[in-house]
């Protein structure tokens, strides 16, 4: 789910931070620049560490010091075929939407929900549709009782400027053994812990 990436960048430390120890000031500037932002490699989650700092020149006309920094960051980037546990957030006629807390754009489009299924208006919540999986004679409701859903992400898309609200989207499927709400498979666990 996470991996390390090494980056090199020119960082500008504002004059107000110049009284801090160098590493702290640079880390602060890096966090502001990268944390919670989507790069081409994924969503930057945390700064892992700084490898080297060079420079410290003050450019004419600018009060801030500029450093060339090589550092490593922790990036959230699920690979294709990875199984992830996420929480159900909402569903509509296009499919499900799951959230990971820090990342909310996980979509399971309708074709990737196990068939046969049907979508019906949710009796509890007027705006949402509810997906129901029909297996044999039983019907399983995909609901939001705070359970985890596992799914393998199909390629992640990073739309450049197409979707201003979702720079990074992870598409998953729950159409396989062991995938879907955890409660569906609990009954099958031979070695069962006492919880989900």
């Amino acid at each position, binding site marked *: 789910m996470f991996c390390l990436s090494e980056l090199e960048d020119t960082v500008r430390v504002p004059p107000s931070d110049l009284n801090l120890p160098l590493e702290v000031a640079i880390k602060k500037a890096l966090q502001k620049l990268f944390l919670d932002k989507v790069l081409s490699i994924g969503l930057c989650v945390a700064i892992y560490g700084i490898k080297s700092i060079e420079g410290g020149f003050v450019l004419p006309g600018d009060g801030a010091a500029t450093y060339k920094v090589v550092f490593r960051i922790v990036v*959230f980037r699920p690979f294709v075929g990875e199984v992830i546990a996420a929480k159900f957030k909402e569903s509509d006629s296009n499919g499900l939407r799951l959230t990971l807390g820090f990342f909310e754009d996980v979509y399971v489009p309708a074709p990737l929900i196990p068939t046969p299924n049907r979508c019906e208006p949710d009796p509890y919540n007027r705006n949402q549709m509810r997906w129901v999986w029909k297996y044999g004679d039983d019907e399983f409701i995909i609901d939001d009782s705070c359970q985890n859903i596992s799914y*393998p992400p199909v390629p992640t898309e990073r739309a450049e400027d197409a979707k201003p609200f979702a720079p990074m989207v992870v598409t998953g499927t729950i159409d396989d053994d062991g995938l879907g709400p955890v409660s569906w498979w609990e009954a099958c666990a031979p070695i069962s812990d006492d919880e989900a």
Partner: protein
Amino acid sequence: MKNIIVKANAGALTNFEVLDLLNSRGASKDTTRVIASETVSRSEYKVYDYLMETAASTQTRESVTKFSDKCKDFKLAKAEILNIINLRPSSDVELTPILEKPDEREIDIEGILALVQELLPPLPTVEAQKENEQEETENDEQS
């Protein structure tokens, strides 16, 4: 702002390692968040909260290293070992989606599950999860 990506993938991290990193920066579960927020930002806290509910929260560095060493005997791919550590499957049906073509490769599913039971601590309990839900004041996740 020009930046150069030196190495896009300098190594995969298990959820446990990321959690360990956040822990070492001072993230913690209870209301001392306000004090620790000097070193840990809000968005990092969201990752922390997510990870605390997964198997990673009960793992130790030792158990994870031991587990991945032993996994080499089972001829698993690195990505599969990573997934198993992150998800801690406790049954056949949970393990199968993680593995790629298990039948063709003659994977010892029972053996792997036994190893998981033995080396990796169990998932955090449901009660603890429910407490988490109530503790959160800003519920972005729940609509």
